[in-house]
């Protein structure tokens, strides 16, 4: 069943895509919607025009990109930070606070201050689970999930309370100062400089992981903490702490960039769960920061296309979500089969899960 080498993998990959397309089409058709129109709308909404691509797809990709990087760097070190969502909120809170309080400052001071504050706040939010992991031995998976809920509710509290707009009616903060806003990256479009910042972060992160001693330690601890300790004299605790904080900072930056680039104020429900989708973004990129740029744009396109499917093809949101899920599964299956092909070229298929005679244990 999984035996394939050479060209067959492409066939299988194409078949997986086709099968998913058929499933999606049949589903839509059964629901009484026009699959062709849906597909056309999805495409045009994501890539159809330069405007759609730049002002919607790329704009949507920014939070995926930064939170995706946050997850990627953490997972590289074996830190299972599921908390990008909460860290994002922490960053957004800090950004909006600095952006309002610092209104007197010139842009060249205020804007960096806003972004740095966002990063620091994200790192601070990550510090709690990091310390619980290192000092108390409490696994970060659960603590980061819990911190997400705390962060979301904390932001909600702030916009109803201390940070609420001055007239005290709507659950949102005041808008940040003009000097705190990220300028447009492409003039006339909605794409802000935050996208460039995020891409730069991806490149920096890739370089750090590949070319620096610290990055190597991160990878070693992630691949085998025991060997990193025994063979490399690497202090896993220090690496975990630093990576956790860096990851939190990136997620916090995602919140800050969203505020400074797009919404200019903090609202309840700022993020629809980017911090969770980020895990998929990062893993699909095989935790490679540069590839995260690609997968983030893919998810941005998916969201952009989903909106267009509703608007242009009249497909209800719930159907659109179901189609999104199918697309993710299709991409995943295709990606998996392609990887199998690459490896299959070296290792002919074994379908009973045959392993190397001498499996190295992680």
């Amino acid at each position, binding site marked *: 069943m999984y035996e394939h080498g050479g060209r067959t993998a492409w066939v299988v990959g194409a078949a997986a895509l086709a099968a998913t397309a058929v499933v999606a089409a049949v589903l839509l058709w059964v629901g009484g919607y026009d699959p062709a129109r849906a597909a056309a709308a999805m495409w045009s*909404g994501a890539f159809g025009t330069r*405007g759609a691509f730049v*002002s*919607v797809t790329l*704009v*949507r990709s920014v*939070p995926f990109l930064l939170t995706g990087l946050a997850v990627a760097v953490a997972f590289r070190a074996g830190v299972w930070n599921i908390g990008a969502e909460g860290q994002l909120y922490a960053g957004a809170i800090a950004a909006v606070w600095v952006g309002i309080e610092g209104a007197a400052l010139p842009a060249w001071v205020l804007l960096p201050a806003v972004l740095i504050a966002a990063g620091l706040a994200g790192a601070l939010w990550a510090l709690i689970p990091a310390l619980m992991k290192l000092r108390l031995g409490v696994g970060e998976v659960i603590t980061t999930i819990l911190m997400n809920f705390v962060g979301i*509710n904390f932001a*909600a509290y702030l916009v*109803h309370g201390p940070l609420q707009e*001055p*007239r005290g*009616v*709507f*659950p*949102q903060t005041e*808008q940040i100062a003009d000097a705190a806003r990220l300028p447009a990256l492409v003039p006339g479009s*909605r794409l802000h400089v935050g996208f460039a910042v995020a891409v730069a972060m991806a490149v920096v992160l890739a370089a750090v992981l590949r070319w620096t001693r610290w990055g190597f330690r991160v990878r070693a601890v992630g691949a085998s903490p025991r060997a990193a300790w025994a063979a490399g004299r690497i202090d896993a605790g220090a690496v975990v702490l630093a990576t956790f904080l860096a990851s939190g900072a990136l997620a916090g930056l995602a919140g800050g960039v*969203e505020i400074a680039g*797009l*919404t*200019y*104020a903090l*609202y*309840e*429900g*700022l*993020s*629809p769960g980017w911090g969770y989708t980020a895990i998929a973004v990062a893993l699909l990129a095989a935790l490679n920061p540069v590839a995260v740029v690609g997968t983030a744009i893919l998810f941005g396109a998916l969201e*952009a296309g989903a*909106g*267009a499917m*509703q*608007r*242009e093809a*009249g497909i*209800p*949101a*719930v159907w659109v979500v179901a189609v999104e899920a199918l697309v993710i599964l299709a991409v995943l299956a295709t990606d998996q089969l392609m990887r199998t092909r690459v490896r299959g070229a070296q290792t002919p298929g074994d379908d009973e899960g045959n392993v190397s005679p001498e499996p190295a244990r992680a």
Partner: protein
Amino acid sequence: TGQQDAETPGTFRAALLTAGPVSDAGWYAGAYEGLLLLRDSLGALVSHQQTRTPAEFDEAFLSYASSGYDLIFAHGFEYQDAAMRAGERFPNTTFVVSGGGRFADNVVPLIFELEEGSYLAGMIAAGMSRSGVVGMVGGVAIPPVEGTFLAFEAGARTVNPDVQVLESFTGSWDDVAAAKEAAVAQLGRGADVLIHNVDAASFGVFQAVRETVAAGGTAWALGMNRDQNDVAPDVILGSAVIRIPESFLETASTWQTGTLGGRPIYAGASEDVIDFVLNPQLLDVVPAELVAEMTAVRELIRAGELTVPRVPFVEGEPGVR
């Protein structure tokens, strides 16, 4: 996508944005029905998008406005900042923001004065309560919810100045179980008439009341947003309703005459958009004097002779900057 139809005189394009599913049998469902009413009564070409995040709001406005939509209903106060931005960019499109607080020539807040209905509900609640304790279960404390609760409490006090009013929020519009537990907790504290503003999760409140009744207690519920009397006809005394579809139709007609814009639209009892509807099946349990008292107050409100307290939030209103 029907470009040629748009050219036909008389047709126009209307879009609806909601921040939640239109299958909530409540707030968003009403708006969706309104959109369909525009299609059916005015021949409008319609489209709907459900958006989730503030960042998406701008994008949806931009997409609709730039593809030639004339009238965009954004059904929730959360859209107002994005609508103001979009209004500046697209002067030829009109943006109607339900519960919005700011306006411009082409940005129009559509204020549903549901407080008027919920004030009447408060009267019924206090009149029907034996314990002197009534409860309110909300989803998220947004101004429309806070406003209705404020009015509910005020209405209740006119009937029983000593009434105790409990208030809980679940933080969610979908979590039926949480709404039910919030209601159970209030019932446990002695509340015996409950009103809600939790949209799709409201059934949890009714279910809690039903179970209290089934266990031999006495308790009642009140519906909100739309006529929910037949959702749980055994326990719902009446509902504070907004006739959103009719109101949308009215707004669209005004737009067609070219007189929409530059000021907020208030849609209340006097416009016949807001009302309180007693459950015909339970009419016999509500004392006639209470019904009479409530009806009298309703007429005062309709006539504009009684102003129900509300949380002011529209620019230019007293107390709003």
